[in-house]
């Protein structure tokens, strides 16, 4: 959410960057451990009898007892947590309560599908949004800026499921150009049928680029207002050079954070967008598993996504420190 929010100053040493990286990774692991507790409490330790939920209201007490033993629900909470955590660390994610398949075989190809969708969205979204953000931010208050700024302000608040439904209505129902749902055979990925990628991708790009445009625009407006840009202009340096050399260069560090935020935003947007299009990725899988209360799948996917989210934060923080010499010495 906010890169760098948890980095207390690490101790000064001869290798400040190495120290910083170690410190950030340690904090990341601590956060992930905290999240694992929350995930475990949220899925398996809250009131609401999982076995009764799974078997339905008419389940016999024998069946309930067997399922409880199978789920390990007859052991005390901390023991169950420890078993679960050590299992995860050994790469054993358990079995789906719904299909009985190992969780890893259920989510493996879906992780690939999600990475394809999110990666493609990022490749379209980041350059597009950065260009629009720079064009708008270069001259705050100009006609172009007003159009870009107000459109992005409106789009930022548009729910993904409505944009997705709108795209389905026009491009699938009315024009018949693209499939309304992204259905793929089990275990396959969308590269064999790229048409199914288009509408989910467009939805992510439309809503996601609004966020990035606003961030980049704000960064560029700030940089263009700075003393060094004024100074460069007063020295008679051509405007194009002022923008590229002075404005953009100093917006480099914020840009890295923008990319990190984009990736994090994509993670959040994926749950809804994948579900709207029934796209077989981990976002849709997670929503379906939550509805079916398939606890092992929910736990595994949740930890996977949380780890990814935290890793992005760490990478962004480290990249920023490497890019900005000022921070390097301060670290």
């Amino acid at each position, binding site marked *: 959410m906010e890169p760098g929010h948890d980095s207390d100053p690490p101790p000064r040493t001869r290798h400040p960057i190495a120290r910083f990286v170690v410190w950030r990774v340690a904090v990341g692991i601590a956060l992930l451990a905290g999240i694992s507790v929350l995930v475990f409490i*949220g899925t398996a330790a809250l009131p609401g009898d999982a076995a009764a939920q799974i078997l339905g209201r008419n389940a016999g007490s024998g069946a309930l007892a067997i399922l409880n033993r199978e789920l390990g629900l007859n052991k005390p909470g901390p023991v169950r947590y420890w078993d679960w955590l050590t299992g995860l660390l050994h790469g054993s994610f358990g079995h789906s309560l719904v299909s009985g398949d190992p969780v890893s075989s259920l989510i493996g190809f879906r992780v690939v599908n999600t990475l394809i969708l999110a990666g493609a969205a990022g490749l379209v979204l980041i350059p597009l949004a950065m260009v629009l953000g720079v064009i708008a931010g270069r001259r705050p208050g100009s006609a172009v800026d007003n159009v870009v700024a107000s459109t992005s*302000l409106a789009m930022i608040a548009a729910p993904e499921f409505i944009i997705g439904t709108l795209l389905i209505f026009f491009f699938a129902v009315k024009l018949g150009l693209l499939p309304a749902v992204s259905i793929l055979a089990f275990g396959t990925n969308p590269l064999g049928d790229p048409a199914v990628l288009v509408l989910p991708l467009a939805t992510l790009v439309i809503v996601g680029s609004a966020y990035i445009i606003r961030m980049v625009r704000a960064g560029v407006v700030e940089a263009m207002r700075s003393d060094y840009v004024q100074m460069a202009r007063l020295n008679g340096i051509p405007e194009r050079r002022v923008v590229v050399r002075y404005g953009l260069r100093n917006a480099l560090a914020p840009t890295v954070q923008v990319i990190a935020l984009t990736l994090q935003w994509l993670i959040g947007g994926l749950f809804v967008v994948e579900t709207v299009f029934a796209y077989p990725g981990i976002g849709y899988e997670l929503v379906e598993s939550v509805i079916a209360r398939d606890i092992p799948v929910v736990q595994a996917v949740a930890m996977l996504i949380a780890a990814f989210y935290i890793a992005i934060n760490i990478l962004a923080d480290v990249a920023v420190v490497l890019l900005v010499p000022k921070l390097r010495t301060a670290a």
Partner: protein
Amino acid sequence: MTAQATVAHGARGHLSFARTWSGGIGLVLTVSVLFIAIFGPFLAPHPPAALLGAPFQAPDSAFPLGTDILGRDVLSRVLCGGRTVVGYATIATAIAYVIGGSLGLIAGYTRSLVDPVVMRVMDVMLAFPPFLFLLVLTTGLGTGPYVLIIGVASIHVPGIVRIVRAATLEVKGRGFVEAAVARGERRSAVLRREIVPNITGTLVADAAPRLTISILLVASLNYLGLGLHPPAADWALMLSENRPGLTIQPWSVAVPGLLIVALTIGTNLLADAVARSRGTSIDRELIAR
């Protein structure tokens, strides 16, 4: 990138935010949708859950917006379906401020052992992707209005704790607070009379974008089927349940969708106008999914 606490600039002209172009549009959109959400149920021609005709009937004189997937009147369901979105989002945001505000005040003012403990827990919650948090919570607690409210409120709590704590720390060092402490006022009195009035301005500007986020989250969860249960009349739920009729009866999807978009865009334009009238920006706060 930490949220900056800008402590009360003092109210600079009431409603000055509505004078800008986008602020005015935001105000009109928000008020219109709120009007439908609040007074709609009194104007509905039919009970929202009554089965009245064939499924997906086109609009006619009996059903001005046609019928839905079960043959219920779309107009009546639209008029009754706004209370949930607006109501739950508002309640969740308010609860978040009560909990987050108290924790932030205590952490910022006392600086006792409570402070580091609360703040580390908040760090963990902030590192949790918000929508993922809601999904995990729903797995454990099941679906329904209470889970919806608790979940959405919890997402805001860490951010609010940070802002309130930072604002409290800043106000605490000022002369009038030190004077009140020196006079021997009780801690609760200092908090109530000196600190709280001086951080409310910051909180108002912070609350507007949070309300938009709450509306988005509540609507998205209802759409996914993880919030309210059918046959509840709810705009987002209408969107998902009537989607099979998109080809033959698009009104059953378009009208509730349009109202949700008008509401979220309206509140967001308002939030932006409020923030700009205070010389701040909502851009930093909007990454919430």
